[in-house]
């Protein structure tokens, strides 16, 4: 795909990187990324990918903008409260970079629509806020053979892992089963520092660019753990699990199935968690 003069000027500071060059920029223009979630992770990720010139960006999110989103979800502005996040995000991205295409779907990713949503994109970036979606997106990416950048954050802590299906460890290889509902505090209950989720979302966009451009060493088979309280990054090696239900030697998952879970900002009562009974991964 040729670049216009305006595009050459817009991307000049990244074009002059020998590792990118005109060919890399054309590669980005021809590429497509689907972001699951236009929230705390999806916001910085979408902005950086749009700014970098990824030619087609898809966004899936079912929610409307709430005032309590704005301390971290930097795609959205105060005037957007009450609007669908997908619409708000589309406007913001268009104002940042009108050269690229933005496609939005206001929906939950579910077992019956995941394939259709993911198929048109080259790479998937999961910035969702619940385990149900995360396992579903992981399984869909493995089954469809789509590279996936996984990122998650809560409190001041975050994880990032890049997954090349059937080549490197997937989310299920690392965490074979989701916790039972209420076992892990979510953003609504535990809180989250906007900057911590921003660090993780930015890293996710960074990984996506690297995979699209074939640059450096992707964050595969290494789970990056960010502890925002000490500002320490640690990485632990992870590996493909031969017993993995979706990418192992004898997989049991051949099609997408829903995992019961609850979402981050659904207004659910925190009382169940506050009781902190056995099986709750939380010290309250």
């Amino acid at each position, binding site marked *: 795909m040729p670049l216009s003069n305006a595009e050459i000027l817009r991307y000049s500071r990244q074009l002059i990187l020998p590792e990118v060059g005109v060919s890399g920029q054309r590669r980005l223009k021809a590429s497509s990324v689907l972001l699951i979630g236009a929230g705390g992770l999806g916001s910085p990720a979408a902005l950086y990918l749009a700014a970098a010139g990824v030619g087609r960006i898809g966004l899936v999110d079912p929610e409307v903008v709430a005032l309590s989103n704005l301390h971290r979800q930097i795609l959205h502005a105060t005037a957007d409260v009450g609007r669908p996040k997908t619409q708000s995000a589309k406007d913001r991205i268009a104002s940042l970079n009108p050269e690229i295409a933005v496609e939005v779907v206001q929906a939950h990713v579910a077992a019956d629509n995941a394939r259709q949503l993911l198929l048109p994109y080259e790479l998937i970036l999961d910035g969702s*806020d619940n385990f149900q979606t995360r396992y579903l997106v992981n399984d869909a990416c493995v089954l469809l053979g789509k590279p996936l950048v996984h990122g998650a954050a*809560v409190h001041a*802590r975050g994880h990032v892992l890049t997954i090349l299906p059937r080549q490197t460890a997937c989310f299920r290889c690392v965490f*074979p089963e*989701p916790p039972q509902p209420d076992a*892990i505090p979510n953003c609504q209950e535990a809180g989250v520092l906007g900057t911590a989720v921003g660090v993780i979302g930015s890293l996710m966009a960074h990984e996506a660019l690297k995979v699209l451009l074939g640059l450096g060493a992707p964050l595969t088979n290494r789970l990056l753990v960010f502890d925002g*309280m000490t500002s320490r990054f640690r990485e632990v090696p992870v590996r493909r699990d031969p017993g993995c239900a979706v990418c192992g030697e004898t997989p049991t998952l051949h099609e997408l199935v829903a995992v019961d879970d609850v979402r981050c900002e659904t207004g659910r009562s925190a009382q169940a968690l506050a009781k902190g009974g056995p099986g709750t*991964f939380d*010290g309250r």
Partner: protein
Amino acid sequence: MAVTVRIPTPLQRLTNGQGEIQCDGKTVTELLTDLERRYPGVKERICDESGKLRRFVNIFVNEEDIRFMQGDQTAVKDGDEVSIIPAIAGG
């Protein structure tokens, strides 16, 4: 000398805010028992009723996943570092 156990943020409420605890034991199981003795209530967050590691929690000994070693019978020695890493979903 003892084994350093790194406690993830959600469990630090049970360890008086401590992110690293020095524990004694020859295996991961013994370490978790010692951790429970020092900070009652921690172990049931990491292990289920039968004492097995919960499936959404990983334990790394010196950055190696114990699932690929000897599980909770994985040996530890003085100076080792053990990290407890639960899955998180927030976004």
